[in-house]
């Protein structure tokens, strides 16, 4: 990318094949994939104070239970899960950083018969959908769970298990992506929040407080800011913040050899707790009642957690679409403009890097992604002409 700074304004001018707006997990994974396709990429990121959903996740690469109402999302998730070990191997090869991807299978523990029945019913309805991708999953009773996880508490009545579920070390994932993106052909710009996008003569001009970036293509991967940016390129993205709170404990010896919903041990030994869901607007603070509820459920599932020291707690704002499924779109009025919005940036990272990015490089989303267009929310789509 060419770059020069005008001495009068102190503003920079960048040129790229593709401008990726957003340097979180989503934007970084797409940018990494684009760089692999030999695209010159400029990543325009906000600063440290930005809302960063990438900071708030349980590091899960999670398949089970996803896609009720949209079986294509289940298939997309399954595909990413299947690509993850290759993705991790490529990152290791390039950067020497092991992102700690493991796929031991995932367990969702239930603390009452009612919870277990709801879990079983949900999985049945999910897998009974037409065109649902087929993968192994099962409901286990307490005896079966106890053989896998002898530490479960007395209230655990059973749970669901899926051998495809896994997890990674998400801090190293982001670091590996950043390290890999520090290469010729890729420019990362912090504090370059995009204020305006214009299109002139087939070229997108992205205006930021510190300069302008010109690119043939633009990818909106800006999380919550996609809602504001999308109309500038003829797209529509409806997302809202949904708060999740997380507790992290001191590092302890590895004891949890499965991925779990709501409880996860990193390969460094820390235990992450939390699956809370709250509609709290733009408030990204933790609240004691929710943290207490998270800790209570975790300790009832695995009582040994009760003796661990809590080191930190924090909250982040998921990028939640209207129906909870991702949005991938390409603009009809502004060819070369794409949008991506989702709340499962870890699980789907392999797809964003290895499947989505090549499509963007080629200039066209494949037909099997059309179902993820935000046009699904248009009423006119639902009413036959």
């Amino acid at each position, binding site marked *: 990318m060419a770059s020069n700074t005008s001495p009068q304004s102190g503003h920079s001018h960048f040129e790229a094949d593709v401008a990726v707006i957003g340097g979180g997990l989503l934007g970084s994974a797409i940018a990494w994939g684009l760089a692999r396709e030999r695209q010159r990429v400029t990543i325009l990121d906000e600063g440290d104070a930005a809302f960063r959903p990438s900071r708030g996740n349980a590091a899960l690469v999670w398949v089970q239970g996803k896609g009720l109402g949209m079986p294509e999302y289940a298939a997309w998730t399954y595909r990413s899960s299947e690509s993850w070990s290759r993705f991790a191997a490529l990152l290791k090869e390039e950067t020497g950083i092991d992102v700690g991807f493991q796929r031991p299978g995932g367990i969702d523990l239930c603390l009452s018969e009612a919870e277990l029945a709801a879990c079983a019913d949900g999985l049945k309805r999910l897998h009974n959908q037409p065109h649902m991708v087929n993968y192994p999953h099962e409901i286990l009773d307490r005896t079966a769970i106890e053989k896998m996880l002898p530490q479960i508490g007395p209230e655990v009545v059973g749970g669901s298990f899926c051998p495809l579920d896994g997890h990674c070390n998400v801090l190293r994932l982001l670091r590996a992506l950043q390290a890999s993106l520090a290469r010729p052909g890729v420019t990362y710009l912090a504090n370059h929040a995009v204020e305006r996008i214009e299109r002139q003569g087939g070229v997108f001009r992205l205006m930021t407080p510190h300069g302008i970036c010109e690119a043939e293509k633009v990818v909106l991967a800006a999380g919550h800011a996609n809602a504001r940016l999308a109309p500038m390129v003829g797209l529509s993205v409806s997302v809202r913040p949904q708060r999740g709170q997380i507790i992290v404990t001191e590092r*302890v*010896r590895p*004891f949890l050899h499965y991925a779990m919903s709501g409880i996860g041990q990193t390969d460094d030994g820390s235990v992450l707790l939390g699956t809370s869901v709250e509609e709290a607007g733009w408030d990204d603070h933790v609240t004691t009642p929710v943290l207490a509820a998270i800790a209570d459920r975790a300790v009832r599932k695995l009582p*040994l957690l009760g*003796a*661990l*020291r809590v080191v930190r707690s924090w909250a982040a704002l998921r990028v939640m679409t209207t129906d909870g499924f991702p949005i991938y779109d390409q603009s009809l009025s502004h060819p070369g403009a794409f949008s991506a919005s989702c709340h499962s940036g870890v699980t789907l990272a392999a797809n964003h890097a290895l499947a989505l990015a090549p499509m963007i490089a080629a200039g066209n989303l494949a037909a099997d992604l059309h179902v993820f267009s935000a046009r699904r929310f248009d009423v006119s789509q639902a009413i036959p002409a």
Partner: protein
Amino acid sequence: MFRRLSQPEGATVRLTVDGWPVTASAGDNVAAALLEAGFLTCRTTPVSGAPRGPFCMMGVCFECLVRIDGVGSRQACLTPVRDGMLLETQQGKREAGR
């Protein structure tokens, strides 16, 4: 290595550190008692295994974590000594549930 500026006149208490009997001054905190008894390190880190000992003595640095009466990772510098207290140094990552 550490020496008191003035000898306390009050009562003493008896502790054990990893099974070793130690005498401490009542009113001292556990970190001060460890240092006075010559235990300069109280744990090794969970990541690299490097030795660590009491440092800030005011509850900020979290270097002085020890197991006190069966409860792991307690801040020695914020815990007053008590007669009969059982102290154990920590090696690397603790074991969950212990």
